[in-house]
């Protein structure tokens, strides 16, 4: 339900902001550059440029939705929240002889994450006490209890009454309304029901926000990030976890490239190597690296070696295939021209084949880095002492969703940064890419 509302709101933001930005652009900016003078843009890929306003709004929208649908304390738009506070209702106990009596139930609904928050003095919060009530008149006595938000409880109303269930007492009314077992009343504070066995049951309304267990609010996540930075997690600082993962990826990728690129060149340049390695490469290519994790653990244990070898294998085939297609992508006229200009084989390799294959190699490197980054996290999920994957996995076991989210955001940001880094390097080393 909440999911569908979220999706609807998201689509609405997409559409509305598009209309508004389009209107504002037309109204306040004059059309100047060449692309904007093109009349055919739909279908002309070169005329499609990322609208930066859209990118900014997109990120802001996700943040705003994150705030709106969690129990964030940020002063932004909020979806209807879960009920919190005291709710009271009456129940009527009726005896087999027809006598009946009313009593009040007082329920205090408290924040479910109270123990995870700190008060002004830095002391962790406590589950609040039951509200004070007197027992009241009659044979049915007033009850009091506490329920966490997003929780629910069967209320044993008879436990302090003079006549219990064993005496034939049954609950016939809730809040003065006659109910048979299985029926329910919807209050603004929540759902009040009689179970099939006749026990009153209360479930405070959850609203549309997600509990901290499912999605912690942005500020909770940020605080957790800062705290992890200061204190670390599981004996290692956040930086050490991140570097552990990054180091494995870099080592695996570098070894993979060091072996894979010459392998690909050999396959692109000689019949024997092509014939020899083709079956191996084609066989290993469709095997997802994740499927190799168990084997790597059996062979090399759960330490660094097995992880680096796994990443090495993940990068190896990708780089070999990239280098091979880089070689086959060289225009034969270039090779012929170089030979006619007196180049020897080694010169052809250095001056023609290698530079010509650079664009393919960079494309391969981007793919390989992506795969390695994904694989390292998965490998750490299985077994590791440190690393972002390990951090996420352990935190999830202890239901520390905020750490999980910090980890996921870090993984995404670093993966993105790696990709941008390679692209920058590519723009610098292969300026001719896409221009010929």
């Amino acid at each position, binding site marked *: 339900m909440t999911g569908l509302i979220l999706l609807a709101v998201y689509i609405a933001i997409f559409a509305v902001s598009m209309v508004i930005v389009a209107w504002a652009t037309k109204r306040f900016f004059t059309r100047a550059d060449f692309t904007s003078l093109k009349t055919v843009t739909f279908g002309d890929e070169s005329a499609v440029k990322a609208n930066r306003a859209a990118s900014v709004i997109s990120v802001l929208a996700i943040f705003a939705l994150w705030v709106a649908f969690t129990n964030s304390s940020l002063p932004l738009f909020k979806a209807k929240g879960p009920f919190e506070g005291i709710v009271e209702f009456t129940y009527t106990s009726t005896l087999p002889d027809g006598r009946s009596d009313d009593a009040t139930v007082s329920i205090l609904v408290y924040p479910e994450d109270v123990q995870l928050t700190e008060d002004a003095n830095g002391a962790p919060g406590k589950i609040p006490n039951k509200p004070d009530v007197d027992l009241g008149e009659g044979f049915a006595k007033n009850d009091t209890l506490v329920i966490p938000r997003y929780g629910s409880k069967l209320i044993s109303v008879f436990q302090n009454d003079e006549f219990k269930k064993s005496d034939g007492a049954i609950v016939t009314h809730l809040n003065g309304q006659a109910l048979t077992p299985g029926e329910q009343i919807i209050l603004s504070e929540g759902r009040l029901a009689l179970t099939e066995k006749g026990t009153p049951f209360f479930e405070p309304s959850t609203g549309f926000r997600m509990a901290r267990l499912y999605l912690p609010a942005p500020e909770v996540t940020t605080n957790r990030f800062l705290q992890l930075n200061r204190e670390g997690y599981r004996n290692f600082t956040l930086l050490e976890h991140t570097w552990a993962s990054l180091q494995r990826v870099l080592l695996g990728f570098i070894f993979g490239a060091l072996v894979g690129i010459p392998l690909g060149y050999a396959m692109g340049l000689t019949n024997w190597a092509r014939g020899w390695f083709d079956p191996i490469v084609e066989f290993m290519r469709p095997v997802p690296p994740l499927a190799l994790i168990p084997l790597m653990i059996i062979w090399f244990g759960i330490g660094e070696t097995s992880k680096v070898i796994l990443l090495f294998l993940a990068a190896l085939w990708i780089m070999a295939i990239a280098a091979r297609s880089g070689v086959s992508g060289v*225009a034969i*006229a*270039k090779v*012929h*021209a*170089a*030979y*006619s*200009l*007196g*180049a*020897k084989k080694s*010169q052809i390799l250095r*001056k*023609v084949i290698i*530079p*010509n294959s*650079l664009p393919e190699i960079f494309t391969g490197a981007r793919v390989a880095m992506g795969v390695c980054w994904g694989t390292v996290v998965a490998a750490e999920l299985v077994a590791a002492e440190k690393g972002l994957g390990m951090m996420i996995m352990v935190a999830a076991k202890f239901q520390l969703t905020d750490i999980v989210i910090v980890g996921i955001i870090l993984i995404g940001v670093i993966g993105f940064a790696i990709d941008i880094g390679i692209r920058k390097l590519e723009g610098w080393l*292969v*300026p*001719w890419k896409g*221009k*010929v």
Partner: protein
Amino acid sequence: MSGLLIDNISMRFDLPNGGSVQALKNVTLDIKSGELLSVLGPSGCGKTTLLNIVAGFLAPTEGQVVVNDHAVKGPGPERGMVFQQGALFEWMTVRENVSFGPDMKKMPRQDSMKIVDRLLEVVGLQDFKDKAVYELSGGMQQRVALARCLANEPDVILMDEPLGALDALTREKMQSLVLDLWKETGKTIILITHSVEEALLLGERLLVMAPRPGRIHKEYRLPFAEMGVGADLRAVKKHPDYAKTREEILAMIWEMEEEIMGRTEESA
């Protein structure tokens, strides 16, 4: 220098389906040093195959090519090649492209730079030395290709439709350039073209080839190349013999093309 001898060359391509194509049959040609030879013929008559054999990229099934009294075994720096397009190294600047040949010979840098500077001036690109080749227009790129070939000081220059991808105006300027370079350097040049006009203007000697199997059909000795050196090519085109020869060759090629079409229709 003793020129170039194409000695009774035949070339047959075996096709994967078991058949074969006779691309060239018994082609013999004696090209004197310093000769400017243009080759014309309908598409598929084996012009590129012939040039690739002379360059040493392909070994003929029969016959041999002799350059400077040595049989051709593979590509070599005494035979320079200018391709239609896409043969420049985009990872190098204009200067690095032109000095590629000298660099392969490990020529000292100041010597090679002298050659590069002189040749870039000849082709009118002295201001583009440090530009990347992909920043140049198509005509400029072909001038770089020409300069790169000349920098290696080949005895024979082989050109496979070097001006084919250029617009008419640029093409005409390049034709003048080729003529002037020919006269100035005295190189042997074999130029393949699809344009009858170009073949007439840039052929001291003009070869018309016929297809299936590829062979020499007719040979002309023409005065227009000599006339065009340092002169206005449009004036040359006004020469009465020019129009006459052009019509004759056009009719000849037209007939061959018709014949090919007819044959394919029959076989279809």
